[in-house]
């Protein structure tokens, strides 16, 4: 599965999608779910919480391990994906549809500081060596 061109990516393997209403959706990448394996639990941040860029704010747990999820940029949590509570495995099945939470960015332009799909692929390849 390739990384969609319409998303932005972080070095901690989150993807970020800018929605029509100006909020951003955050999930974890194909590469991250592959590393973690079968997902069994997701803990999303509380709605209304303000997050600094790079702040630890959520957790995904697979059978194997727990991994922190970081806020890609600063902003306020507006919504969490309740559907993941009952089916965390949808992160494995379709990581780019399984968003974990949404934020209203403090500054919408901050999204442009993140990697695009090509840069992220180079980053993943470089980590493998």
């Amino acid at each position: 599965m390739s990384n969609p061109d319409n998303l932005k990516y972080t070095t901690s393997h989150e993807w970020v999608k800018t929605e029509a209403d100006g909020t951003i959706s955050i999930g974890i990448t194909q590469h991250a779910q592959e590393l973690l394996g079968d997902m069994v639990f997701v803990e999303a941040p509380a709605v209304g919480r303000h997050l600094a860029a790079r702040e630890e704010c959520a957790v995904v747990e697979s059978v194997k391990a727990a991994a922190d999820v970081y806020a890609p940029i600063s902003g306020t949590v507006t919504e969490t994906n309740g559907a993941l509570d009952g089916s965390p495995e949808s992160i494995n099945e379709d990581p780019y549809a399984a968003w974990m939470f949404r934020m209203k960015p403090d500054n919408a332009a901050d999204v442009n500081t993140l990697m695009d799909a090509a840069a992220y692929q180079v980053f993943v390849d470089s980590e493998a060596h």
Partner: protein
Amino acid sequence: MTTLKQTPLNAAHRAMGAKMVDFGGWDMPVNYGSQIEEHHQVRRDCGMFDVSHMRVVDIKGDGVRAFLRYLLANNADKLTTPGKALYSTMLLPDGGVIDDLIIYFMNEAWFRVVVNAGTADKDIAWMKEQVASHAPNLAITPRMELAMIAVQGPNARAKVWEALPGSQELSENLVPFSAVEMGEMFIARTGYTGEDGFEIMIPAKAAPFFWAALAEKGVKPIGLGARDTLRLEAGMNLYGQDMDELVNPLESGLAWTVDLKSARDFIGKAALLAHPPARKLVGLLLTDKGVLRGHQKVHTAHGEGEITSGSFSPTLEKSIALARVPAEVAIGDVVQVSVRDKMLNAQVVKYPFARNGKAVL
């Protein structure tokens, strides 16, 4: 960077799409696809595991039994029928666990021992040291040329019989926890999953062919990830997590493997008798949402404890754990576990959690 050790099945794992990881210095398959599916595969049908990283050690010579009587916490005198196996710990003089192992009684001049991969060198050095001072005529021979494949699950034995001509006649009457030789192979009705099945020792050069024959009969490969959740559900200890040199077997849920009744002396016995256990190993079932993991703190009405192994149980679809807690903690108690910044509720339960395809809580 050190080179990882490889089993004779390394190429086979890669060809089957395994995700390989560094497992205590060995390049081993952690899963081939979904770990949870591999887990269910073993509980519901059968699967095969490469456990060639474990070490087979033969102890031969006159007086092996007397030596093992002194070396191990369980009593080798329980083994009276050739082929019978016994699970035991091997202790330090202070009662700490050097390793847990299985011994097979072959004849009065030959016992076979299977030890853990990560502790094998230390174990063999310890055995040799004890032999030197107590039974210098005994020979301790690590069988590096033997690979080991575990086939586990309700259909495991039947699949082995299909894949290995001649094996059924020899092994169909094996009672659980016993073994039989088949030429250069060794078939044991043992395992680490809580399911029926065999662990089969086979010369390294033949192992890839046997593995391929099993695959051809539809036996799926299972990685070390599922091996860990299977053994945890089955309530089986993992060395280095649930016990190590810093704890004794009585505080590790292994009192049933320690023979303190017979008159014989064994290494560690005096220390065990001198210090009644203040802690014990219990099962935990998480009633809140989340996943229990090793080293998380457990808060009880009788003091603090610690999770030794924790994971998600695919059979129960809940998180379970083994935890070392104060001895006063009772089955049914509700305890709290520190998980990151939260305190989650868990119930103290009697383990195993699941065996023979079913939840047993």
